[in-house]
């Protein structure tokens, strides 16, 4: 009888303790026109709670920064980017969350001498229209007529100075677009910004072992529970892969950091043997051809998303002086896959990089 009682006690104890054991839980969130993948090592109860909050974060910025659709009818928010773009010149009350992300975008515009600018949505629309055109998607280069039409449309749009004003009065937040040449587009920033917010939540709640993969270009990593040095290996995709090349050109080892890549290997079209990609220079209104890809390792995923977009249009000389100036305040590392297929790691500091 004693033996049976002991066995039952042990089994009951195992069942009880198994509910408290940490395991890896994986979740998928559909937001910002991509799939956000989050992996958390925690008890099931905690993981479910944390993922619910992370999902809310992504959906908040998905709705607020959407420039294709109005807010859902039952939304608790006041307005979004789509609605704001339809009302140039008007003073519009906005939620604090939208004010905060736009204020951050303005900070980065100043930091990059205007290379990052969320007000060039009209120019981006013209390029995206051709990148997503049926002719190109069916595998044909764009025609001369299509190119000339693109050039004409681009010439008609001016990049605006002081494109929008943010202000607050009596605890309320407002925005005013300068004129109808201004169209806000947070596509190059919102995903990284939301990822940063998700990371800040996990850090505050002392979740150490996690992975957030926000689409194909932005990752935030905590500590790898399965590795002695707690680092995750991250493959760097070859942006100019030729027939006999491998998929990856290198690997970095990372923990407690975000990794963001901007490259010309996705979203582009060909014309006259030149690849016209989606990272548009605010200075020339055209995509520049200094690099195939830039990968940034830094603690702030929002900063990385904005800055990799901006520096893609900076010449190597300008980039060098810019990095020198900015690094005193901001901590980051960059791996550059140059247009001539050389790899530049001069802006790497601590992160372990291995060429393949």
């Amino acid at each position, binding site marked *: 009888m004693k033996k049976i009682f002991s066995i039952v006690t042990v089994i009951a104890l195992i069942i009880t303790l198994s509910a408290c054991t940490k*395991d*890896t*839980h*994986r979740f*998928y969130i559909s937001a910002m026109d991509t*799939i956000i*993948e989050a*992996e958390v090592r925690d008890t099931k109860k905690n993981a479910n709670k944390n993922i619910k909050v992370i999902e809310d974060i992504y959906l908040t910025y998905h709705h607020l920064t959407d420039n294709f659709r109005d807010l859902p009818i039952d939304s608790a928010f006041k307005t979004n980017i789509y609605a704001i773009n339809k009302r140039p010149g008007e003073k519009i009350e906005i939620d604090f969350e939208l004010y905060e992300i736009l204020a951050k975008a303005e900070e980065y515009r100043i930091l990059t001498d205007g290379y990052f600018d969320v007000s060039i949505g009209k120019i981006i629309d013209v390029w995206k229209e051709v990148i997503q055109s049926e002719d190109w998607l069916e595998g044909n280069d764009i025609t001369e007529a299509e190119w000339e039409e693109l050039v004409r449309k681009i010439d008609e749009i001016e990049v605006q100075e002081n494109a929008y004003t943010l202000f607050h009065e009596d605890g309320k937040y407002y925005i005013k677009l300068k004129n109808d040449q201004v169209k806000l587009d947070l596509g190059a920033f919102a995903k990284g910004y939301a990822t940063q917010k998700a990371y800040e939540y996990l850090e505050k709640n002392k979740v150490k072992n996690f*992975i957030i*993969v926000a689409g*194909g*270009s*932005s*990752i935030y*990593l905590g500590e790898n529970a*399965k590795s002695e040095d707690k680092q*995750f*290996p*991250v*493959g*760097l*995709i070859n942006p100019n892969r030729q027939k006999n090349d491998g*998929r*990856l050109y290198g690997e970095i080892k990372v923990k407690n950091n975000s*990794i*963001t*890549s901007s490259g010309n290997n996705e979203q582009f079209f060909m014309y006259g043997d030149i690849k016209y990609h989606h990272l548009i220079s605010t200075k020339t209104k055209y995509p520049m051809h200094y690099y195939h890809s830039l*990968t940034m390792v830094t603690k702030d995923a929002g900063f990385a998303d904005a800055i990799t977009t901006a520096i893609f249009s900076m010449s190597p000389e300008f980039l060098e002086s810019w990095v020198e100036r900015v690094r005193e305040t901001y901590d980051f590392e960059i791996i550059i896959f140059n247009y001539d297929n050389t790899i530049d790691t001069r802006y790497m500091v601590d992160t372990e990089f291995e060429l393949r």
Partner: protein
Amino acid sequence: MKTKSPLQKKRDLILVITLFLLMGGVFLVYRMTAFRGESASASVYYGTEKMVTVDFGLQNVNIVSKQAVENKYYDLYGYNQFPYHDVEKNSIVLLGDYTVRGVRQLVVVSYDFEKKSMQIIDEKSPNNICSKEGESTGFPLICLPNNIYVRFEQERQLEV
């Protein structure tokens, strides 16, 4: 020669049965616990070469490598390449190494994004062991005479 007493024989029998049950129990526990948890992806291999990856999260199938086969098999089976991804039937068709009258046979692997599972639904081999394995969400599916196997990966391969 010393003969065993009936008591010793009985003891031996009990020992053998106990060991047999123990090993069976260990195997069952292993199958139930070793492949617990959700898989991020599964890969289909021909020999040591990875041919196809199925990403359950992103819900896509990626043909990583193509099998080098004699031209006659394209006409014989009506597929333009191996592995062939049959999008309509959520399955992947490969050419196995098992031959019937000198002709290599097909191996059909189905996938289910929602259930994060794989199953070998059609193959020809002496005992059809791998197609009898049923649907798997974690334990590997091995088609030895055909030289094809399916392996699940819990960890995501990180790339930017």
